[in-house]
């Protein structure tokens, strides 16, 4: 009998092991693997220096802080896989928040405000996607221009001042469920849906194809123009969602509230293993990337490193990840 039970546990252990391996292979490619290990190592080191880092309060804090950037990072990941880039996200978030805050102060119903914010972001993104693809323009330059335009419009609209929400529209950004902030649920939900889309839909598979080789994708029967407009629109939807959450969380709409978000999200995407050359990137990698950048800034605050050093650390991680990525050979 003891022998038998021993074999059973052994078999169970083996089963568990193979299940774990299956899970590992499913989520983790040869790029996100090392990143996950680096992230865990970093967490262990920081926790040894400052145990408060692993407190429930702080974990919740980190997750809340990365949620907005995380949602936009997922959009940026779609864009970068499709060999596009969007420098306008930061000021589009700000512009959308200003518009929504203005509407809110006119006592519009929540549904109208939500719809207005999402429609604004989706349509602006879809339009820029159409122009960029139709005229074969460089997305980097066009979105650089749009960044300035959105910023200007938001400043004109608000006269450069913040628009307070007067405690309205708070549930989305400040609410909690089971002690976990609502934005964290939304972020995780976005990740799961994006993963499903990339993995299990034809759209997702075509995304990699279009990003890797536009001409070959066109010749394979993909309507590349329509496809890219869809990618921009989907990205716009996530930007609108992020704008809503951010506005709700900080309680104001301001023309500068998300300045720098484009760099943060591009950095997170690239740390996560996506290639600016297109055709490569994963949701899981980008999730780890944005988490890593968020944890760095949070942990440095906790152990009392100045913000100035944080910038340097951030840069080191981004460049380090790119070097590590260039050293990893493709599976073959």
């Amino acid at each position, binding site marked *: 009998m003891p022998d038998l039970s021993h074999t059973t546990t052994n078999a169970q252990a083996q089963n568990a092991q193979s299940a774990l391996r299956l899970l590992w292979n499913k989520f983790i490619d040869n790029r996100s693997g090392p990143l996950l290990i680096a992230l865990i190592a970093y967490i262990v080191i920081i926790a040894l220096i400052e145990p408060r880092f692993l407190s429930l309060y702080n974990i919740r804090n980190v997750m809340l802080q990365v949620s907005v950037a995380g949602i936009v990072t997922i959009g940026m990941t779609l864009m970068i896989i499709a060999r596009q880039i969007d420098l306008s996200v930061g000021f589009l978030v700000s512009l959308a928040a200003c518009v929504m805050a203005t509407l809110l102060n006119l006592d519009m119903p929540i549904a109208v405000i939500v719809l207005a914010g999402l429609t604004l972001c989706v349509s602006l993104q879809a339009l820029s996607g159409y122009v960029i693809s139709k005229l074969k323009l460089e997305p980097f330059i066009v979105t650089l221009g749009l960044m300035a335009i959105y910023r200007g419009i938001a400043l004109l609209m608000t006269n450069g001042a913040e628009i307070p929400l007067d405690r309205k529209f708070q549930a989305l950004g400040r609410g909690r469920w089971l002690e976990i902030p609502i934005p964290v649920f939304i972020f995780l939900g976005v990740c799961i849906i994006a993963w499903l889309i990339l*993995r*299990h*839909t*034809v*759209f*997702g*598979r*075509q995304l*990699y*194809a279009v990003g*890797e*080789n536009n*001409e*070959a*994708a*066109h*010749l*394979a*029967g*993909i*309507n590349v123009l329509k496809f890219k407009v869809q990618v921009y629109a989907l990205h716009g939807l996530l930007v609108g969602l992020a704008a809503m959450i951010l506005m709700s969380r900080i309680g104001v709409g301001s023309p500068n509230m998300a300045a720098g978000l484009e760099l943060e999200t591009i950095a997170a995407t690239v740390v996560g293993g996506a290639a600016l050359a297109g*055709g*490569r990137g994963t949701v899981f990698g980008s999730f780890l990337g944005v988490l890593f950048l968020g944890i760095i800034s949070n942990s440095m605050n906790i152990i009392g490193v100045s913000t100035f050093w944080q910038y340097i650390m951030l840069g080191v991680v981004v460049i380090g990840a790119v070097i590590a990525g260039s050293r990893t050979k*493709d*599976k*073959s």
Partner: protein
Amino acid sequence: MVDTPILILRNIVKHFGANKALDGISFHLNAGEVLALCGENGAGKSTLVKTMSGAHAPDSGQIVLNGVTYPELTPRLALEYGISTIYQENILFQHLKVYENLFVGRELRTKHGLIDRPLMMERARDIMKMLGADVPIDAVVSELGGAQQKIVETARAVNSDAKILIMDEPSASFGKHEVELLFKVVERLRDSGVGIIFISHHLEEVRRIANRVVVLRDGKTISDKQINDVEEQALIKDMIGRTVEEVCHHVCSTTSEIALEIENIVAPGVNDVSLTLNRGEILGLAGLVGAGRTELLSAIFGSKPITSGMLRVQGKVQKFKSPKDAIDAGICLITEDRKIDGLFLNQSCLANIHIPYETKRKGQLVNWPKARSMAKEMVTKLRIKVGSIEHSVKNLSGGNQQKVILAKWMATHPQIYLFDEPTRGIDIGAKQEVYREIQTLIEAGCAVLMASSELSEVVGLCDRVAVMKNGQITCELAGADISEHNIISAAL
């Protein structure tokens, strides 16, 4: 000068891990001769080229240069002895002028240290004259044709005092006329005493230009013969290790049902072309490079707009706005350059095979088990040599890559296959397999329109041949009239 070995290789062996790339290569090169190096993909040609240019150090063996024996070469040593290599890929600076390209890295200077353009242009002109080449030295390289660009690369080698010139498939993408341009230059160079190693898949070209031919197989030297002593069949046998009855063996299965009919098509590069293609038929499109064959295929496939004319598929009038429409109507196009617009190089075999299928199917969700089993079935059916369907296609040989492209289209079950250079850059064994697949397609009732610059395959494979010139069909050949002679005379 003749029969003085300037380069001798003795028993060169090179391993990559457990893989033996070179397994005792021995041959020599004389001054003033063209030595053809033939072999299938994977025979060791590329590794050998890199050994001679000093990029790879052999594990054992000797390299004798001008009587001095070396265990290995370095790039610097190779350069000092005047070993120049022209790789398959063009390495010219496309935005610079021809003479600037000749002097990149060793610009001539005036006594004030400034660039001496007049002197550089004069030297460049001298070199072109010596090569007997008609290439404008102040043209920007990107404006030149493929053959002219290879000539510029050759001139660059001459400018660096090359004694030994290695040309790795220099004419892989050229039409007959361009090949001839390049060969005239090669002959001049040979007569001036340079030893030339010429690597090519094209046996016709080898026969045309080489004095001697060395065949490699599995990293070994199989034969070393004077070109006059060697039969083409024997050469093929040396290369693939077995006899092949004919270059391709064709059984006619043409039906009277019309698959594709085009009338008075006008499109960029195509000027008033009419054709009919029957089910079960292989119609060849011959002609020089630039005759409008690729343009015609693109127009039919909807990837280039048609200005006027009519297109009927299975009797139905069609207007294709994009390749998508053509694919939906049961047409597919295997493009000329698989790496540029045929494959998603970094993606897996699986992804490459199932994307057109999923796109055509217009479903929203991927059925992974089905996609996998379909890809596996294709891999087995076409004998694609790949470790796993999850592996990226980047590392496959040209022949296997071409089969992946064939597989991805076969998965969409088209009725009409448009091939643009179906066997470019793939070895003889893989060519035979592609020919067999084309034969299987027409036996199943598909129709094939095939543009090819390789006359042997046009003659051997096609039921009818349309010869194009300046965007028009100048002549249609059928049956016994299909011969290399008739095609060439119609194309020129």
